[in-house]
């Protein structure tokens, strides 16, 4: 590259005496330190602001907030149980669908697939992660919901309607629809992390199993997957974290009704969705505070979930270093 550099003979600059500290170094380090300090400060500030914003609601409703079910801005009564229930249920549905699928894909890609297929498939699935959530919502409203309502939901309602979870009228917008869109959205995360974990399993592991006469599936399932187990669990929990906090697509599909319904075909609500829908139109200070309280609870749940996932993934990578030393 011909540039200003090529004119100048680049010799080492005269540095300060070796005993002292180079003033440039000092500046370099302090600027970087400032940026690094800013990150924890931001988090602290976020927690502080959330607490401050929800103080009114915390004082008024206390911990009973997470148990009660009334949500009445006019009477200024707020309880978040239906929201928490909806958040947990939609995330559970999402994981129930996404985990087997993404594990299947991850195991196939690392253990079975021909080499030429690996790159394209993981690329395509990672593209899924790049699509904005609002586009999933748009697609859900106009394509997925009409499809589900006329086929899957109708079938479930007709054939399995005697089960409480498929009972009641079929609206389309429902817990199950939100769960399905969430499954599509979290699948790429679970897939790519568990693929990385599986790739990190030493070849000797599967060679030993194959050498003992295992079929390829047995080698993958009994030798490779257990080795990567806690990493895979970490990947799943990361996906759970995504599903819990996902807002737009869920808001557009879940039906937004403050109630705990037994049926998966009934509308529900999630913590993120209620904030998205009501925050700009909050009627009173206590309404704002209640919504911020919901955000605080949501934040707390995702922090716990993510910290757990990190811990598990970290344990796997640490385990590898130790295993490597042992061999």
């Amino acid at each position, binding site marked *: 590259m011909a540039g200003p550099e090529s004119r100048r003979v680049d010799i*080492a*600059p005269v540095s300060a005496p070796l005993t002292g500290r*180079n003033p440039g*170094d000092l500046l370099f380090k302090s*600027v*970087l330190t400032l*940026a*690094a300090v*800013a*990150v*924890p400060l*931001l*988090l602290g*500030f*976020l927690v502080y*602001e*959330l607490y401050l*914003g929800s103080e009114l609601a915390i004082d008024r409703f206390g911990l009973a907030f997470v148990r009660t079910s009334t949500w009445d801005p006019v009477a200024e009564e707020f309880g978040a149980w239906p929201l928490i229930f909806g958040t947990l249920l939609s995330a559970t549905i999402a994981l129930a669908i996404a985990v087997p*699928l*993404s594990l*299947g894909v991850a195991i*196939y890609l690392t253990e*079975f*697939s021909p080499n030429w297929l690996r790159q394209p*498939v993981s690329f395509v*699935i990672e*593209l899924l992660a*790049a*699509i*904005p*959530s*609002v*586009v*999933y*919502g*748009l*697609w859900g*409203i*106009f*394509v997925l919901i009409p499809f589900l309502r006329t086929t899957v939901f109708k079938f479930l309602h007709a054939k399995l309607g005697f089960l409480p979870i498929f009972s009641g009228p079929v609206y389309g917008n429902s817990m199950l629809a939100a769960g399905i869109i969430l499954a*599509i959205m979290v699948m790429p995360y679970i897939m790519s992390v568990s693929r990385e974990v599986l790739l990190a399993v030493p070849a000797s592991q599967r060679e030993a199993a194959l050498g003992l006469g295992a*079929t*390829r*599936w*047995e080698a993958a*399932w009994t030798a490779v997957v257990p080795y990567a187990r806690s990493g895979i669990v970490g990947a799943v929990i*990361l996906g759970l974290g995504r599903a819990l*906090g996902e807002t*737009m697509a869920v808001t*557009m599909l879940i039906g937004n009704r403050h109630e705990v319904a037994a049926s998966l075909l009934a509308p529900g609500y999630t913590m*993120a969705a209620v*904030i*998205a829908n009501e925050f*700009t139109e909050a009627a009173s200070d206590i309404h704002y505070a209640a919504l911020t309280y919901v955000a605080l609870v*949501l*934040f707390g749940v*995702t*922090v716990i979930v*993510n910290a757990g*996932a990190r811990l598990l993934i970290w344990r796997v990578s640490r385990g590898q270093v130790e295993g490597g030393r042992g061999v």
Partner: protein
Amino acid sequence: MNRLAWRRWKSRTMVGLMIAAVVLAVTPLILILGTVIVKGAGSINLDFFLQTPAPAGETGGGVAHAIVGTLMIVGAACLFGLPIGIAAGIYCAEFSTTRLAFGARFVADVLNGTPSIVVGIFAWTLIVDVQKHFSGWAGSASLAMLMIPMVMRTTEEMIKLVPHSLREAALALGYPRWRTGLSVVIRTCLPGIVTGSLLAIARVAGETAPLLFTALGSQFMSRDLGQPMAALPLTVFTYATGPYDDWHRIAWATALVLILIVLMLSLLARLATRRRFDVKL
């Protein structure tokens, strides 16, 4: 069937099931991209990029205001998010064993998992609630907050890939640490940092939730970050949930533009790192 045949059969069945899983996993992408292109492409013309929306209920109009809004909000977010994120990433890589580095890394992971709507509330209490009006700046602040941990972690990972020998060679030649850092280490992994930054930009450009009660959205052209501003994801949301058919048409077209921007940024990001592998570190 003897035992071996059964085991072979099981192995083949499981492989078959996994192939089915691959097909099932790839289908949504094809369906979503396909629908967005089919439903959106028809409405894209020059007016769509140059006009602001027609009054509710009328047909026609474009999303120029949202394109300008997204560019300005994301641009302003980069102004804060990229330098802080990159600098914090360099710190964590260069001084990787300090307590601050461990802390910052952990906090970044926590922030990465934080729902974007929670960050939106943070920006609301910090800026909107204080100023008593919605603004593009508040939107930028929430997006910057989302960018910092992403950019920080990728920067750190990229710097870690730089071989120690390069660093040692520079130090042995008498370079001070800061010059070694800037003109040897950072320059070597610059494409990687660019990749991380582009991926972060792509992700926040598609974010809707944190903008809902910060930038708010608007039906008019606004070039003032101090005022409520439109953005492409907000436009998709408003129009998709609105009552008019013409709005739905515009929602699809806007979604197409948004997807194209996001995918282009992601592809650019990949190209930037591909060059890194050519250089052969």
